[in-house]
């Protein structure tokens, strides 16, 4: 080891010389690239920290959805008939024609059967049973869209008894009347059917309607025999009995 090995002035001179060399710098464009990469890496690693562009896109999407929702609400509120008139349209377009189609069949079928509730099919004559089946078939064909399962539909399509068929027919006709036409009363075309209807009203405790129907019946069919239960009801009511 020589004396120069530990000479601090020589080392100082080397340091000074080396420092004087230290002038090189990376270009600014390279600085920008590296720092941009560093920022990008952080943004990509944190999904929650959205970039300005993402914030704008999300805000725009939310605004669009909001405007759309508000527009739909306003549109619906300004046109209530879109919702409210749909049931009546359904009745007008489907139920009423179907009801009209089956009423004559029901009337003609029940005309030969004595009045009573829940008529047992086994007690019907062959000809009557055939007519009942025909009505069933017509009813199913007339109301194809009323039920997803037409074979089990409980409306007028199932003629299991006249007490079921008549009120449903009435209901349909009432719906038709609600649309503006004078409500038809098909049961009045036949005295048996009329009495059957009155029986139904009595069973349902619709006494006002029953009074009206019986009064009308007595006016039109003065001599027609009235079932015992209706006669009893007439006696207990204040309506004057024409046919004792």
């Amino acid at each position, binding site marked *: 080891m020589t004396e120069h090995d530990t000479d601090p002035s020589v080392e100082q001179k*080397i340091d000074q010389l080396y420092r004087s060399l230290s002038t090189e710098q990376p270009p600014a464009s390279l600085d920008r690239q590296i720092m941009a990469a*560093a920022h990008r890496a952080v943004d990509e690693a944190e999904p929650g920290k959205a970039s300005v562009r993402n914030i704008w896109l999300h805000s725009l999407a939310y605004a669009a959805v909001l405007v759309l929702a508000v527009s739909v609400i306003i549109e619906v509120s300004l046109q209530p008939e879109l919702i409210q008139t749909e049931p009546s349209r359904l009745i007008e377009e489907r139920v009423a024609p179907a009801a009209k189609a089956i009423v004559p069949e029901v009337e003609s079928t029940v005309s030969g059967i004595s009045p009573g509730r829940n008529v047992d099919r086994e007690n019907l004559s062959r000809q009557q049973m055939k007519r009942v089946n025909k009505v069933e078939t017509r009813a199913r064909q007339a109301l194809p869209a009323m039920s997803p399962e037409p074979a089990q539909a409980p409306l007028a399509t199932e003629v299991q008894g006249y007490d079921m068929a008549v009120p449903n027919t009435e209901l349909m006709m009432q719906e038709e009347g609600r649309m503006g036409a004078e409500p038809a009363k098909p049961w009045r075309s036949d005295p048996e059917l009329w009495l059957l209807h009155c029986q139904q009203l009595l069973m349902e405790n619709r006494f006002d309607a029953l009074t009206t129907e019986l009064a009308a019946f007595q006016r039109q069919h003065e001599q027609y025999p009235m079932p015992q239960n209706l006669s009893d009801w007439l006696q207990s009511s204040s309506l004057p009995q024409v046919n004792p």
Partner: protein
Amino acid sequence: MKLLHLMPARKAGPLQSWSDEALMQAYQKGQAEAFDVLYSRHRARLYRYLIRLTGHQEESLNELFQDIWLKLINARDRYQPSAKFTTYLYRITYNHLIDYWRSRKIVNEPLADEVSDTSELPEQHLQQQQQQLQLKQLITALPEQQRTAFLLQQEAALSLEQIAEITGVNRETVKSRLRYAMKRLREAVLESP
């Protein structure tokens, strides 16, 4: 630092007083501005370290420089706060250079002498320029291991222990390499006019 103009002014104040390790931790946690400060502190030293060690010209030098910083960015989650940041940075650099030389089958021989046109410089300035050129030549003429140790000490201001950790040798080996490197430089400096 000249890089301050590249950084947002609102972030420069408090972060500038943070240690390298605190800045790196902040960057790990997603504070990208901490990286800007960290980068501004070490960019020039690392750049010069690469120049002296590889002797590359601007294009390939910039590529190397960028690759090293990108490695640091991508490996930020692996940084342990107990480690000194400069050690971490120069270890990445050292490993990257070894991979770089291996991939290109480059033997890091002493670099070629630079040729500088000094004919139009004043005499005093000319003398200083000649000494600088001579020192550059001496550094580049050092064996690769001595040059690495010398540059890590001079440019990165690392301790013997840190250099030993980066280069994967023990402290005494580093000390020996530095002693030989300084001896060569001293002799050359003393011989010069």
